[in-house]
């Protein structure tokens, strides 16, 4: 009787000390899950399927009609998901500019969870490579596109199908070795 009470008391004393290792097990499980999921791969549900239906208003103050499903197709193009608060977007922006202005590729923008005045200031400062920009203030359309974080860039073919997704910052290597050859190939089809 006394022995069980004592061991129960000992157990009560023990459990707070077990807490850290239990918390760590949970965190470790999430980290392990994080490794199984390659963020650079598009969820297979969307790859080679037509882009989802969507319709977005323009950024208030930018002179276009917004961006919707109807703007996709006709020619291969890029859809760049960006936000003024996103640091890597700033780093990759010169490359997007180059693709639009020097390579003559149509680039549409999805402005993700951004304040209109910040987004406009950003475009004014760094240059505006976009034909159409949709203002996804609440991030709803981003979810339909399976946006994991900004920046992300999609390659959409002439039939409006998503054929490639770049997660994270675009680099010169990705542009030269993946994006440009892919666009060339799509143009020939």
């Amino acid at each position, binding site marked *: 009787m006394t022995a069980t009470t004592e061991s129960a008391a000992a157990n009560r*004393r*023990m459990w707070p*000390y*077990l807490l*850290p*290792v239990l918390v*760590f*097990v949970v*965190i*470790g*499980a*999430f*980290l*392990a*899950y*994080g*490794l199984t*999921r*390659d*963020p*650079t791969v598009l969820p297979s549900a969307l790859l080679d399927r037509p882009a989802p239906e969507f319709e977005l208003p323009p950024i208030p103050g930018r002179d276009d009609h917004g961006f919707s499903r109807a703007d996709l197709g006709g020619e291969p193009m890029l859809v760049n998901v960006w936000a003024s*608060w996103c*640091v*890597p977007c*700033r*780093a990759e922006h*010169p*490359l997007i500019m*180059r693709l639009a202005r020097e390579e003559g590729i149509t680039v549409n923008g999805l402005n993700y*969870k951004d304040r209109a005045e910040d987004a406009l*200031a950003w475009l*004014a*400062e*760094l*240059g*505006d490579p976009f034909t159409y920009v949709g203002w996804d203030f609440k991030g709803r359309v981003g*979810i339909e596109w*399976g*946006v*994991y*974080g*900004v920046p992300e860039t999609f390659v959409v073919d002439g039939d409006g199908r998503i054929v490639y997704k770049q*997660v*994270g*910052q675009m680099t*010169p290597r990705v542009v030269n070795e993946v994006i440009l050859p892919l666009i060339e190939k799509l143009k020939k089809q």
Partner: protein
Amino acid sequence: MTIELGHFALVLAFAVALVQGTVPLLGAARRDPVLTGIAPYAAVAQFLLVSFALAALVQAYVTSDFSVRNVFENSHSSKPLFYKVTGTWGNHEGSLVLWVWILTLFGAGVAVFGRRLPPTFLARVLAMQGLIAVGFLAFMLLTSNAYLRLDPAPADGRGLNPILQDPGLALHPPFLYLGYVGFSTAYSFAMAALLEGRVDPSWARWLRPWVLVAWLFLTVGIALGSWWAYYELGWGGWWFWDPVENSSFMPWLVGTALLHSAIVLEKRNALKSWTILLAILTFALSLLGTFLVRSGVLTSVHAFATDPGRGVFILGLLVVAVGGSLTLFAIRAPAMQGGSLFAPISREGALVLNNLLLSTATATVLLGTLYPLALEALTGAKISVGPPYFNATFVPLMIPLLLALPIGTMLSWKRGDLPGVVSRLKFAVAASALVAAGYLALFDWRGVLAAFGYALAAWLVVGSLLELAGRIALFRIPIGRSWSRFKGLPRSALGMTTAHVGLGIFIIGVTATTSGQIERILVMNAGDTTTLAGYEVIFKGVTERRGPNYIAERGTFEARRDGELVAEIHSERRFYPVEGQTTTEAGIDTTLWRDLYFVIGDKVGDEGARTVRLYFNPLVVWLWGGLVVMAIGGLVSLSDRRLRVGAPVPARMRAAAAGG
């Protein structure tokens, strides 16, 4: 050839680390002085070997030896020498060499300065350092080898990301690593204590200098990173709650908590298992940061290239190091009964409050950083957590911490006299009220939050100085005697006051920048004039300039006040042909009171008009200044002779010891 020798040195270092990680443990268990005695020699040998390996890699960078794959991928012959050297750690593999070098530097440091530690304890500490090195050397040799050759050697390299070619960022990684790799010592001391089954005030005293060193380097490292983000990213912000920033900030928060709880352990023999836990967690969070940056789990501007194989390896290291230590903690810590009791209102109580708030703050940052990952694992939903979350959770936790700080430093141990302390702080209360009222009356009657921020800063600074004044009985005894009391104060007390005043200065900078930043975005033609916060800003136009490895468009501005030239400011857009990238260099004129921060943007039309972004940032330099003052506080505290285990024992004590 040198590079092969460097590679070989690393393999040797791995072998030495294996010996260092096992033999001394055996020696400590068997009380065998020969086996424990190996540890210091192994630690120093390991340090020399890794130093040689690092030097070999730096040499390959300096001489632009592109037959080395790592040099080819990350350097270019046209890069200035300084960036050739610092480019060594501008990539995953090279930065790991630096990481391990710093690990062995601390190991050798403990071996050299810790000769007075009990032999079994020293052996166990060094064995832990050895085991950590085994893990990371294996990681380097198996998955991330910087010492591989290319055949044939390419003519020139691919270059270093231009955004990294910057003095602030070149020095940021070494400081950061000195900080969070330095926390490995806290981990090793904690593990050794758990293995010995003994934690007492002298343990806390041995631990303290190492934690202080790591903490002050981490403080400087974070300050450098934030300063870099401020001037290089070109939008006037200084902290973005980016996952990678968070992963350096979490060890800092817990390390700060550890510094404070170790005081309680040292002075009052209480909070034993809690201090041990903090020591483990500080390094665990450093390792978690390493994992997040290098595994590609989270995408960020700082992240190195994604490679799941590496991620699995580091996760394995994390599981062994953190899981193992926390399990040992769960087994051994319950036996470590806390020492003396104390009333809730006491110095101990205040330090417990400090620890609770700091660790809760760490938990909120950790939650915000990992939440997107956890949510996706559980529900498949994809979200991102931004600054609003952190501002809403982190800031409210810091306010009670800062409010309680001056009170806590004045409470006495065991049982404090709260009304007495409050009456001693009446000047600080008055100063804060005056500052708040003055701000509202003179600057901005609606700026209640800003007024609160300044009042908080005044409370910290005046409160800390009052505590110091109390110690030396300023104005209560003749000034000469106060001065001699001041000179006799322990350095750790001065260090504390300095660090707390630094925190106050930091708060001033944060408040001013957050509430007082003025931003103007407009299109300017050469010769146009505009106004910004009482300055006339004249845009003189854009010229071209050639740098060593870039071509720059250079915009020139003049800032005038009442017609008089205050500063000529240049902002550049640099194009790096090798890397094919453009960077923006903000033009910044800094004084103690404000920064004028100008950025030129893209061309508008064909006439040479430019979008420009003009910022007026009041007191922004106080922000980093405050952090530097905090680090200086750490340095002052470090010079306290009680902390130097090897410091000569006062003659009186030696005589007593000899007599006894």
